[in-house]
């Protein structure tokens, strides 16, 4: 019996990510969900600008590379072109919460029937470790060399909390992938986010608190600990909106 093997929805090619980068773990979870739901043939993924820009080379489904921050707008076009297709975006924190914030908020407000996978690793990875909209207060990056000073550049943005105030979105959950139990929970959330789309429920966003060992300047192991000790207190895990569940309760 096979306990684990590469999911079909991921191509058998080496990923370009740094050693221990959790992007690969999230790629796997998305691909496993695509496999389990049997939707690879009708799924179109949208890659962002940032570390995961080349995700289009990894997923076996049709893929589109979007301009920086515009993936939810591109996804809107693809979904409106054929609502029977499954459309997901895969975006980092700079892409989704900085340059693409307007596209994110409005796709959520429209309850666009798409799935958004949001990687929050509190840094710009591809460009070499600059401050992100989600970098923690005090976090040292290339562009906050003395630590993020809220007087100078404000506070990190909590995307799930922010979007949860909107009437629009169907489902918002924050997960992480720094341990086996957390990875299992993350997969469950991602599966729900795709299932919601299949059920026509609308906009689902899964924020995955992730690591960037290279730009955090840590070993992969310490980076996972840093998630637990520093990231999760500011970015608490949990479901921030589940409209269908709330409606059932009422």
């Amino acid at each position, binding site marked *: 019996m096979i306990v684990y093997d590469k999911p079909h929805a991921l191509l058998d090619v080496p990923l370009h990510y740094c050693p221990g980068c959790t992007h690969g773990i999230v790629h796997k979870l998305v691909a496993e969900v695509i496999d389990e739901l049997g939707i690879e*043939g009708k799924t179109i993924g949208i890659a962002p600008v940032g570390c995961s820009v080349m995700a289009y080379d990894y997923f076996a489904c049709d*893929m589109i*590379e979007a301009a920086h921050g*515009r993936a939810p707008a*591109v996804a809107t076009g*693809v979904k*409106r*072109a054929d609502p029977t297709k499954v459309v997901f975006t895969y975006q980092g924190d700079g892409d989704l919460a900085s340059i693409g914030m307007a596209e994110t908020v409005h796709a959520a407000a429209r309850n666009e029937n798409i799935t958004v996978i949001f990687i929050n690793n509190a840094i710009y990875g591809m460009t070499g470790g600059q401050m992100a909209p989600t970098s923690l207060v005090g976090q040292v990056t290339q562009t906050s060399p003395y630590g993020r000073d809220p007087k100078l550049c404000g506070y990190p943005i909590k995307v799930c909390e922010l979007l949860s105030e909107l009437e629009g979105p169907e489902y918002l959950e924050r997960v992480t992938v720094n341990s086996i139990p957390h990875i299992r929970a993350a997969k469950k959330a991602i599966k729900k986010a795709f299932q919601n789309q299949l059920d026509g429920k609308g906009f689902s966003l899964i924020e995955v608190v992730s690591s960037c060992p290279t730009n955090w300047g840590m070993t992969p192991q310490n980076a996972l600990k840093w998630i637990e000790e520093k990231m999760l207190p500011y970015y608490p895990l949990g479901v921030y909106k589940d409209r269908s569940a709330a409606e059932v309760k009422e």
Partner: protein
Amino acid sequence: MADKVLMKGNEAIAEAAIKAGCRHYFGYPITPQTEVAAYMAKRMPKIGGTFLQAESEIAAINMVYGVASAGLRVMTSSSSPGISFKGEGISYLAGADLPALVVNVQRGGPGLGGIQPSQSDYFQATRGGGHGDYHMIVLAPSSVQEMAELTVKGFELADKYRMTSMILADGTMGQMMEPVALDFDVAPAPEKPWATTGTNLTRKHNIVNSLSLVPEQLERLNMERFERYALVKENETMYEEYMMDDAEIAIAAFGIAARVSKNAVKEARKMGIKVGLIRPITLWPFPDAPFKKAATHVKEIISVELSMGQMIEDVRLASECKVPVTLCNRVGGMIPSPEQVLEAVKKANNGGKQE
């Protein structure tokens, strides 16, 4: 004779787009093109299409990118400041070789400028507008009928050459009403095997992408794109010549400026001045041939523009600077009058001296 209906230029574009099979429109309100969006908002829901008012011009052009990736005919429209916003997306459309139609109903600039007609986005349109080496097919209508016909043509050319077509109109063309016949033939969209419509597990995945990190590959992609552009130049250049056969003076003008100029030509001819008009219909590719020919028999070319002189550079290049090329213009939302153009013609006829 087909039935004609009285329509605004902006509405003619919208209805022609629907006739061309476009079922997806994304836009953001801006004067003086808002009638396109308003018309689409009314019509699209009735015919199973999508009208979506995007959160910004940037979002709108990226929604266009999404539908184009899925292989369907799609459009957006805006006016000058909004087209600057769309510049990023237009560059990505070019980089990913996606067909789409973008309408620019120009207004005065730069910056927020004004809301009256202008042709001052000529450089932006004909040189690409965004970053990188690329072109759009730029179509310049000078009647409401042409607003409609060139919209259909724009979709067909976009599909044929996998590039963006732009309708470069202006506030006058957008707002004016004329009778228009809408019973044209539309070529069906070609097969798009590159489109991201889902693999159905029967083929390798398609990728729509403008990233290419290996310089040799990126160079090759650029070269191939320009080979396609060369075909466009060869096959699709369009222009109109009016009374050019015996002309001693030529006027170069497009869009609303060409209409004004045609009146000036008629008046000048009554006075016995041999003047003609060359009206580029495609601004890119620019019709070099009629200007090159004109330079062999005219003593001056007058470029009539609603800008500080943009097309004049292409006129000089096309006529290889063999004859003087002068500018007759108004800007900021003003339109040259036939009298102003006539004065310029008379001056040219008088060897460059005011009478």
